[in-house]
């Protein structure tokens, strides 16, 4: 393959300003928001920034022709290495496809391009009385396309459900280079639910180029409560009690002392730094129901030793509390140069013993672990803090991570709640899936992408995907192998 020719052909598709080929620049696509010490650094051979579906399709066809892997990427805020070009090849960055194409209030949907920023969509629809419910903590930077790829969650998914509950249809460029639409503006489409298959497939089955999202009516009233607790145990007992009482808040979040200290240092939002843990509870709905639920939750928190229950007095105060909470991962940079973030989920009743286990791990491996998570969903986010330059640290961190996930799975939980599998968590899938389960998924992957060149090395466990590739090779289908810069310069 001739690198210069390919570059010219890519430029003919997206223009010279839409192709990155300079190695000095390609390095800034080696990372996403996951830790490079864990996910590793991988450099794409080319980055292209298309502006239309046709351009995406043309780039995909070129990659296919040249046998190069394709890695789609949005804002690069993913936490599992999903948007890293693990085998080089062509990275398709969708940030320039960022138009909101249609907002249809009467049928309650919007059609957007994948590079639209999550919060920008809600900002555009809020004045019209609607919002896009999935609100990952990175929502002010992450893209809708990334949300679709990872089936992202967020604090408000407790009540509203994750991304897949809010996607009505997709326009997708398939590995074959064809462009198809799935789903549509009506609640149920006949036939195989391809939208459901594609949401959460992390760019391994296709590149989404348009997204039809469901819009949710703005609630009549919103109330945010902040309840500090002396310990993380008392706070998790309160969570179990709230859930048991049958109250459904819009969001029910917990932060432990380390996390509170980090976000307070960053934003001075008003979290009490002396608390063992805080619960941040949002209730929304009809005004009367909100008041009633708020009273019930306040009582439960008090019964479980909350030192106080504060109601955010204004919209500004609510926003300040949420802004700080949603920046908690980034705020860890104030405590540590590196962190390994887990995304395990356990049944809510298992929260107290699981958090206790996290504490034990912290002691056993001599690692500081911060907890900031969607307590209402039982979706833990332990952040294991470390310094990659400390000898042996990475090994300890990985062992602690594996111990934790094994524990969660034993308790009826799972290895990832919302961040995706990507590069970082693929080997944990064997904890929850049998070889037959995985083979069924691989069969689906094969039918979309027989050449296995879309986002290779992601999602499927290492041992498994090697076997799969060997099988495909044996069948005589050409397999992409990545290119490596040394081959082409």
């Amino acid at each position, binding site marked *: 393959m001739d690198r210069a020719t390919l570059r010219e052909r890519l430029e003919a598709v997206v223009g010279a300003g839409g192709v*990155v080929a*300079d190695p*000095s*620049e390609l*390095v*800034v*696509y*080696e*990372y*996403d*928001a996951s*830790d*490079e010490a864990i996910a590793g650094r991988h450099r794409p051979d080319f980055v292209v*920034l298309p502006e239309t579906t046709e351009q995406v399709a043309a780039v995909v066809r070129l990659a296919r022709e040249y046998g190069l892997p394709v890695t789609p990427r949005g*804002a*690069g*805020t993913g936490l599992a290495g999903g948007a890293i070009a693990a085998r080089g090849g062509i990275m398709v*960055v969708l*940030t*320039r496809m*960022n138009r909101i194409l249609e907002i249809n209030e009467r049928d309650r949907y919007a059609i957007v391009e994948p*590079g639209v*920023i999550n919060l*920008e969509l809600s900002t555009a629809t809020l004045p019209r009385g609607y919002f896009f419910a999935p609100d990952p903590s*990175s929502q*002010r*930077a*992450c893209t809708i396309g990334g949300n679709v790829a990872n089936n992202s969650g967020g604090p408000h998914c407790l009540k509203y459900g994750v991304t897949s509950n809010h996607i009505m249809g997709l326009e997708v460029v398939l590995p074959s280079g064809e462009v198809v639409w799935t789903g549509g503006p009506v609640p149920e489409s006949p036939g195989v639910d391809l939208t459901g298959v594609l949401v959460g497939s992390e760019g391994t089955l296709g590149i989404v180029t348009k997204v039809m999202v469901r819009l949710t009516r703005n609630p009549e009233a919103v109330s945010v409560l902040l309840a500090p607790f002396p310990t993380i145990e008392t706070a998790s007992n309160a969570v179990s009690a709230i859930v048991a009482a049958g109250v459904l808040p819009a969001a029910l979040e917990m932060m432990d002392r380390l996390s509170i200290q*980090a*976000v307070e*240092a*960053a*934003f001075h939002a008003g979290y009490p730094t002396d608390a063992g843990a805080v619960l941040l509870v949002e209730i929304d709905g009809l005004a009367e129901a909100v008041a009633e639920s708020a009273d019930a939750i306040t009582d439960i928190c008090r019964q479980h030793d909350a030192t106080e229950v504060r109601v955010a007095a204004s919209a500004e105060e609510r926003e300040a509390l949420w802004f700080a909470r949603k*920046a*908690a*991962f*980034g*705020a*860890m*940079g*104030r405590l540590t*140069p*590196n*962190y390994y973030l887990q995304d395990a989920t356990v049944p809510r009743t298992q929260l107290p013993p699981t958090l206790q286990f996290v504490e034990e791990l912290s002691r056993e491996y001599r690692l500081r672990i911060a907890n900031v998570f969607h307590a209402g969903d039982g979706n833990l986010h332990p952040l294991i803090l470390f310094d990659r330059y400390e000898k042996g640290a990475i090994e300890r961190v990985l062992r602690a991570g594996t111990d934790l996930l094994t524990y969660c799975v034993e308790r009826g939980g799972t290895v990832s709640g919302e961040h995706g599998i990507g590069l970082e968590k693929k080997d944990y899938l064997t904890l929850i899936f049998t070889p037959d389960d995985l083979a069924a998924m691989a069969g689906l992957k094969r039918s979309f992408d027989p050449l296995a060149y879309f986002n290779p090395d992601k999602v499927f466990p290492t041992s498994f995907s090697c076997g799969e590739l060997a099988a495909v090779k044996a069948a005589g289908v050409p397999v992409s192998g990545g290119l490596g810069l040394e081959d082409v310069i």
Partner: protein
Amino acid sequence: MATTAPIETLGGFRGHDLPSRDVIRSCVHCGLCLPSCPTYVMTRRERSSPRGRIWLMKEVSEGKLDLLDPLFEEEMYLCLNCRACEAVCPSGVKYGEIVEASRAQIEQARQPAPKVRLLRKLVFHFLFTDMRRFRAASAALRLYQRSPLPRLLERSGLLTRLGLAEAHKLMPTVSARFVVPSGETMPAQGTWRGRVGLFTGCIMSTAYADIHQATIRVLTRNGYEVTLINGQGCCGALHVHAGDPNAGRALARKNIDAFDNPHLDAIIVNAAGCGAALKEYGHLLKDDPAYAERAAAFASRVQDVTEFLAAQGLSAEPGPLPITVTYQEPCHLAHAQRITRQPRHLLKAIPELRLVEMPESSLCCGSAGIYNLMRPEMASALLARKLDNALSTGAGVIVSANPGCMLQLTAGLRARGDSRPVLHLVEVLDRAYAAAEAHARSVGADAQ
């Protein structure tokens, strides 16, 4: 025996003003900064984002990227140093600090063309370091502006051919009377509430002397005695931002010496860019044993005029101004100094004034010191976006609080054939007080 300090290095960085490795490492590349960055918003390209630039710095610091790689240089200077990323960064990365250090590193390492060196010497070291020279040059500029020459030149097309058309358009109209600080004190009106020193700066005291006059009137009217300390000069922000921190340090020492006066409650500054630089003197002179402590003490006394007035409260009631305004946040006020509520609070204190918020108020207007002269393409794209946002509010007046932004916005409006005024926030307050006075006079006249 004299010893030479060993030359410090950090990968490809070497010599003085090394970017801090710890600051570079404090970025966990979460990406939450991306949408706040003007150059990322315009290009959607990772290299032109704060996260991308920090990664490039990291590459240089690890010896993997050459300090003088054209890409590195391009990105360090395409950055507006607006510091919007810093204000939203959860990890607290001191971005401004490392981008300024990286620029200083580039300037140390490369040999600029003799023409550039001469121009720098003339402007940075000759003009801005001595206020007498600066005023003389400003007076000459005023004479020129009042002569028929500018129009002749513009019509001749000579400016375009010399590549000076943009700069010519952006030139401020120089005030008739300069503010020359010579130790004089303007007495407080009404109940005495304290004594403050006004930081007069360079361009503010000549081109924008009217804003200084308005600031003095508003402060004295609110019970503050205002002193114009002798011996002060330019704050040095332009030098530091252009990668010449030593010139900035010389100016900082001069200002610290001038303001070595314990009888001041605060040092008031009305230019956001200068204010941010003055508040960072502590960092700028941290390695100077004779000045480190004094610089930190000086910095802690500096307050933006809006910050000061909002904190102290207005003791004099502003009169009504029946106008609709929109507020454009100067980056170095909103991001570098995190002052966003106070200006709005003051505007809302004016009866009958209607404040309509523009979208993206905190996105840079493209002025950024001398950025609009160096990077006219990016600057004018940002300016167009800013003006569209500002005009969408239907406001009759755009209010800001920094000379650079005001120049940029005014030039942009005039180019669109729009005659809307761009005012500094203290000018609006000053007009409100004038309205109060006029009202009081007419009531008095009626009573007679």
